[in-house]
């Protein structure tokens, strides 16, 4: 089975694709930090961030529809976290319900806060999609390693990327094997079968882990991760990082000047 959902557009060539993964990672980090730290309800700043990310996405030639589709995946999770905020935030009620002794109100401040969180989450995800869609996982891992991320974490990510698909194939085989022998049965039986499958998958992964470790030992692995330094930081990479950090900071601080300017 072929999967490509993580870095499907890494083969597209653009200025963004050619940047060093370290430059892209640091820029994304700066951008996401600024997005998260910008004061609540700074709608102008959100708009500016959106323009910046959208411009970069356009330059990177990643299809906009793909980006949009991928970015929506995260919103249900945000909704789950924020769903109760409008009911608890103090402020002016925009809608209330009285059920005997119960009073339920939706507050304007709460709704605004939810909208703000949605904007921030969506903008952050867009920035991350820009990073992952334009960088192959192998390059990204090399970049992280060169940025002194602990080797064990880089290895964990690398194994996860490599075996995600192997394990999902295995899960698919297990469920095919179940479906070919399963003829209904109660919910209890189905849940139990699912439990067995999860257990089988865990055991297989555990055993595979041991075999992989054996293969690593066979090739002289001694606990130290080694790799070739194939990345080279060009002037354009450094210029890009500097511009991105300045732009992120400028937009992040824009609500402050707006206040000074107006007030």
């Amino acid at each position: 089975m072929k999967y490509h959902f993580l870095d499907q557009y890494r083969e597209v060539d653009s200025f963004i694709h050619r940047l060093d993964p370290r430059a892209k990672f640091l820029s994304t980090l700066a951008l996401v930090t600024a997005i998260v730290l910008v004061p609540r309800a700074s709608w102008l700043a959100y708009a500016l961030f959106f323009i910046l990310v959208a411009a970069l996405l356009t330059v990177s030639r990643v299809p906009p529809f793909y980006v949009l589709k991928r970015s929506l995946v995260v919103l249900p999770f945000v909704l789950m976290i924020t769903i109760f905020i409008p009911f608890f935030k103090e402020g002016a009620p925009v809608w209330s319900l009285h059920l005997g002794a119960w009073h339920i109100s939706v507050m304007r401040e709460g709704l605004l806060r939810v909208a703000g969180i949605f904007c921030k989450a969506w903008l952050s995800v867009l920035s991350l999609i820009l990073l992952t869609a334009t960088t192959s996982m192998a390059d990204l891992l090399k970049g992280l390693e060169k940025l002194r991320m602990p080797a064990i974490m880089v290895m964990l990510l690398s194994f996860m990327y490599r075996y995600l698909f192997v394990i999902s194939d295995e899960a698919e085989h297990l469920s095919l094997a179940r479906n070919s022998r399963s003829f209904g049965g109660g919910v209890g039986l189905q849940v139990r079968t699912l439990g067995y499958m999860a257990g089988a998958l865990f055991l297989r992964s555990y055993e595979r882990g041991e075999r992989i470790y054996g293969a690593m030992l066979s090739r002289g692995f001694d606990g130290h991760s080694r790799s070739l330094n194939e990345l080279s930081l060009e002037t354009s990479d450094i210029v890009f990082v500097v511009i991105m950090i300045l732009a992120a900071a400028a937009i992040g601080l824009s609500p402050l000047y707006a206040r000074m300017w107006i007030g």
Partner: protein
Amino acid sequence: MAEVIAINNLSFSYPDGQPALRGINLRIDEGETVALMGPNGAGKSTLLLHLNGLLHSHDGTVRVLGRVVDKDNLKAVRCQVGLVFQNPDDQLFSPTVFDDVAFGPLNLGMSPDEVRSAVCRALEAVGMAGYEKRSPHHLSLGEKRRIAIATVLAMSPRLLVLDEPTSNLDPRSQGMLIDFLIGWAGGGNTLIFSTQDLDLVEELAGRVVVLGTDHSVVADGRPEEFLSDADFLVRTNLIHEHAHRHKSLVHRHQHAHEHQHES
């Protein structure tokens, strides 16, 4: 001829008490091409794992190139014994083919230039030059097998040890693999492989070692001595015999144990 492997009275049981090897004595000299045969569960893979110290038994000794395999020389032994696992998904654990083939040379402490040329040579030797940037989970089983061999070739081992190298391969991939192995053995190199495939043995092996269901060596000699002895082959479960009925005529005949999986 110089001794490459000397196994002296080796017995091994898995931690759960299940015996896997019993009183194995085996000496393999430089330049020999040895096929390890035997039914499922006879201990073929277990024996191969002992050759580079991935498994270690306190009962009996394994000597590789004159050195008894123990904790202090594991790394040196593993560099000289190129062990290729049956499932290439266990052997290829890196995000790209290049990284995988470079893993061994990097652990040997080669310089970046040496690593690059070792990777290049190894991939060329198995006919996979140009696959450096590909990621292993997008390759066919035949391609993965050849790259798995390249990962150990890059370390310039003194002998190659392969676990079921042709199992599950389509005929063309099998042919390419066998051609490579013939080339390797033809260069005077030592080759040890486990297999169920009598055709492969006939084509490649200068010597056959048969493990029996009692986990000991039941036969050891030149392939010509066994391959014509149908009774022996049936007895040791290398081929099997079953009855056919053609109209009223019942006759028995033997089948080589050869598995061709459609994929």
